[in-house]
Every structure is written in structure tokens, then in C-alpha cells.
């Protein structure tokens, strides 16, 4: 179904009623699953993702199962000084509107796996865990655009839950442009956080930054876009990442607060110590 982009100029509202700089509703939970070392659940609009982290643990054919085929070796050394980040993405057949089954060997899935692994490896202190493996398995339950961004955010939350030391949150977001490449419209506005309909029609990119700094750890652009528009999109994307980081941070703090309240965590630190950053 083609998206009618011409209406944007009338009211400056997008198809789902957002303005150009508005994120969709992000809802996240951590520690959703008791058996795993770390787990999270993240919704960005209608994109729903679950993440389970196992490790750092001893690598081997038993734990990972798919050392050869799972792609996504981050860091730069399996058996060497650094831990290996192995990402495994399962896109459920029921996740899109029309059922489409993607096998494990799907090229797009493999590329997303290596992107997520590299983005995480930039933030995780993998040098602290030599000869070990961090398994990140991501399940896509429902997709409506910004899939890669949602995967990166969910993986970050699960790594926080697993207690793996990391430099900062890796927050990701998408940005697009209001008119197509072919329109060659110089006055096109950038857009933040694209949904599936917009992704089909408009040029867009996914950007992930290290926390609220301007350090970009992943940048993926798979569509044709005029170079003059790229800067505006990137600025909007990085700004979106900062908003996402705030949301992720709030989720983690809230969970931590609740765990101290419930007495799950030792009361070594007071509730108010948490606010000191």
C-alpha cells in the first residue's frame, strides 16, 4: 500500500498523527525471564522484541550451538583475550501482517545479527572476559518499522540486566526524510522514528549512539538519499537516540528501585544513592 506523502505538507502531521520530531511510545521491561542471566522486553510502537542474554560463559558447541553459522562475532577474537558476542535473531513467522517465514540463513537477518553484535561489543567491556562467550538471542514478536533500532535497544537492556560491565547504554533510533529520493525535494524535513509504512516509501537510516554522547556506534542506511539531506537526518537520529537513552535509563532505574524495595537486592546502597550519577 503506497503511502501518500503529499499530505504531510498540509498539516505537518505524519500518517500516524505524529509530528516530525516525535518518537512512538516506547515501553520496556527488564528481567522478564527468570532462567536467563539477563532478559528484556521492548516495544517501540507496534514493534515488539524480546531479548535473552546468556553469559559470559564458556564457549563451546553445547552452549552456543551454532558457533559457525550464527554469524556476528563482535570484538575481534573468539578464543583470544576478548569475549565473543554471539547474536541470534529469530523473526517469528507471525510477526508481520502477512506470514513470511525467514530461515536462519536469511541474509538480512545475518546482517542485523552482525550489526547488533558489533554495536554491543563497542560498549561492553569484553576484555574482562577472556575465552568466553556472550549469547544474545533476540525474538521478534511483531514488527512495524525500526526493527534494528528496537533490537539494539532490547539487547542493551538485557545486557544491563545480565550485569555485564559496559561503558554506557547503546541507544538506537531511526530517522527519515519526508519526501522520496526521486522527488528531489530540497526542502524535505527530516523525520524521527519511522514506522513500517514510512520505511517502505521514504529514505531512512538507523543510528545507534553510545549513551547521550554524539559517538555513533552503528549507522545503517539501506535506501537512496540525497547527500544534502543526510546531515539533517543524522542530527535528528542522534537526538532521538538521546531521548531513547533517557527512556531506557528510566526503565533500569525503576526496576532497580523496585528490586531494592522488595528486598531482592541487598540494601548495601540506599534508595537515594541511586540518583547520584
Amino acid at each position: 500500500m503506497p503511502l501518500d506523502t503529499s499530505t504531510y505538507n498540509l498539516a505537518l502531521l505524519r500518517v500516524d498523527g505524529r509530528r516530525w520530531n516525535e518518537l512512538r511510545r516506547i515501553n520496556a521491561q527488564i528481567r522478564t525471564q527468570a532462567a536467563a542471566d539477563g532478559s528484556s522486553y521492548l516495544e517501540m510502537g507496534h514493534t515488539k522484541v524480546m531479548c535473552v542474554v546468556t553469559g559470559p560463559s564458556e564457549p563451546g558447541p553445547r552452549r552456543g550451538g551454532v558457533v559457525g553459522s550464527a554469524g556476528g562475532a563482535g570484538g575481534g577474537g573468539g578464543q583470544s583475550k576478548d569475549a565473543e558476542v554471539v547474536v541470534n535473531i529469530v523473526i517469528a513467522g507471525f510477526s508481520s501482517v502477512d506470514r513470511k517465514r525467514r530461515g536462519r540463513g536469511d541474509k538480512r537477518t545475518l546482517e542485523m545479527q552482525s550489526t547488533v553484535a558489533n554495536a554491543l561489543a563497542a560498549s561492553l567491556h569484553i576484555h574482562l572476559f577472556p575465552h568466553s562467550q556472550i549469547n544474545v538471542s533476540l525474538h521478534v514478536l511483531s514488527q512495524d518499522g525500526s526493527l534494528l533500532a528496537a533490537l539494539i535497544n532490547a539487547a542493551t537492556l538485557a545486557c544491563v540486566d545480565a550485569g555485564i560491565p559496559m561503558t554506557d547504554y547503546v541507544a538506537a533510533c531511526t530517522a527519515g526524510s519526508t519526501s522520496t529520493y526521486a522527488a528531489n525535494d530540497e526542502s524535505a524535513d527530516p523525520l524521527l522514528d519511522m514506522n513500517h509504512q514510512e520505511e517502505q516509501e521514504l529514505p531512512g537510516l538507523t543510528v545507534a549512539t553510545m549513551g547521550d554522547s554524539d559517538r555513533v556506534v552503528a549507522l545503517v542506511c539501506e535506501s537512496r538519499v540525497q547527500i544534502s539531506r543526510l546531515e539533517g537526518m543524522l542530527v535528528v537520529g542522534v537526538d532521538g537516540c538521546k531521548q531513547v537513552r533517557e527512556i531506557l535509563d528510566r526503565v533500569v532505574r525503576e526496576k532497580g528501585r523496585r528490586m531494592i524495595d522488595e528486598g531482592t537486592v541487598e540494601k548495601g546502597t540506599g534508595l537515594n544513592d541511586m540518583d547520584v550519577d
Partner: protein
Amino acid sequence: MASQTHLNLSPAELAYLHASLSLTPPIRPDGRSPTQYRPLSAETGILPGTNGSARICFADGTEAIVGVKAEVEKTRARWDDETIFLEGQEGDEGAEEDKEKEQGGNREWVELTVEIPGQRDDDSGTIFLAQMLSEALLADGAFVERLKINRGWHWKLYLDILLISPPLSYPLPLLSLTTHLALLSTRLPRLKSEGDEDPFFDDDWAAAPHLYPKDRKARPPVTLLVMAVGNNIIFDPAKEELAVADVALAVSVGDSAERTGKTAEDEDMEVDGRKLRLLSIRTVDPPSRLTPPGVPNATNSAYGHAVAGPQQQKMPEARAVESEAVEGVWKAPRGGAKLAVMGALVQKVLERGGVADEVLDALEAVDLS
């Protein structure tokens, strides 16, 4: 088929587990009674984009999500089959062998996939799991008959089964229960067209009827994992328990209260109006068969006993002595299961007010949103 749960237990630990599980009553490592399932939490209707979905978490932390999606598909026009289908619908007794043929065609109306993280999708264990689960669904033609719209069209049902957690225990009971629940919550749009017209549906989702209506008795099948240690029959074994099982069976049970016209076979049993019906049995190869045997202290050099001397080592009889059963020393079960044990296992599953009944009751109580 091996139930690949990898567990590093020493022969002494295996012997201890085996001994405590073969007591009367058996003492299970997690303190459950032999027929008790792990406590679970369940919810349905979690994915608005599917026709039906469910999520179940077992108390040991394993978690699964099942989504059901349906598509309308044209039934392949084969006129000879068409007439057979009608005959089967009328419940004609003579059409027994014809029904077999008709099921073969309908089998393609259901597609079931299992995804287990960290395992290849062509892994033999995963395929075996999917096969067992779809076998239970297709065993009697009752399920695919529900998917028929009219003579020219049918629903094609896709069941995607996701194991979210790492496979801590053999996931068969979890996946089966979640599939059962997802099918209970599955709704298909209400048909507006009549007869053999091209199907036309009501677009009001609130009016969509359930695939398994709540007021009817029929329920989707459920597969139970049962194992035997000595003379004890144990339901829903955990990983450690499966590691010492003599026999492990996957027994699929259906509820066929609607098909009262059929003659009561000996496996049919009337339980509070519920008619449990045995659908399929598969033996699951327990990992106990792959464990190394223990060595009695008497022959263990680590305990200071003289190892068999050079003259003894040459004799083949010295090895045979080792494999004899010694109290407190683990010995992997060899040979097939005894027929009497298999019979007892199946009998126990189908028992009046037994575990199958309990499980079906519990799942029925889950709120279908």
C-alpha cells in the same frame, strides 16, 4: 530420538537420583509428587496481530510463545476426493478407508514450526519436536475438519512455536501446553457467505468465533511427557530426572467428546463427560542411555584397590564382571522398554481424573482474552 539436554552429572549423582526416584513413593529433586506438573503462569491474546497467541512460563524459568496465523486458501480441486469428503462428513461407517486418503490431503492445511534459540532450524531434535506436536494435531482428522470453510476453500493454519528461554529442560511439555492454549484462544473471522460461494467474512473481530468454542466439549490435543524409573511413573520430568529415566514416552491425548457416534474403543474413557482419547505415542530416547557407567569401589584403583593385574586384563571375563548391577553404582539402562511398563505408562495417562484431565482443566481455566 535423543532429548539433547546436556547435563554434567557424575555416575555417583546419577545413581543417587535413580535410587531416590525408584523409592516408593519416589522422592523427586524438586519435591514434587510423581504426578505433579511444574507450576506455571499462562496468558493468552498477547499478540494482537495473530489469530491466537499464548505465552506460558514454567516455574523453572522456561518460557514459550506460540502465535497462530490463518490464511484462506483454495482447496485443490480433485473431484474424486470431493465426494469422499462428503461421505466422511456424514459419518458413514463404510468410508473408513476413504477417510485415510482424505486426511492425507488435509495434512497440508496445518504448518507447524518450532524455533529454539541457539539451535539450527534443521536440527534433528527440533524437527522431531515439531513432528511430535503436529502428529498429535493431525492424528484424528477432527482438527483439520474445523479448518474447512466450504467445498472450495479452507483455512491454512500456521503455528509458530518459539522457545524464548534457553532450553533448560526437554521443552516438549511446555511447547505442547502453549500450543494447546494458543489454539484455544484462536479465533477465525465469522463467515458471511453461504454454501459454496467464494468466502466472504465479517470484518468485526468481536464477532469472530473461536476455533474451539468454549461451550463445546472438544479441546485441542495435549502431549504429556511421562517417564518410568523402576516401577515408578513420573510426569513432567525435569532435566535431572530425565537423565536417569529407564523409559520416556511422549503421549498425546485428545478430548473427543463431540464424536460420540464412534464406537468406544478400549482406550476411550469417559471422565466427567470428557472423553480422553489416545492420539499418538512416541518414545523419547532419554539421555541416561548415553551416560558412562560407574565403577564399584572394589575395582576402582582410585580407592586403593589393586587394578586387575596384567594376567587378569588379558582375560575377557574380567570386563563382564564390571557390568553387573551393583547397589549404589550407576549403570546406564540397556535394551528396550518392557511392554508392561509401556502399558502402565499409557494407562496412567488416560486414567480417570488423572494428570491429563487435570492439565486440560487447568488450561481451560485460563482466561481467554
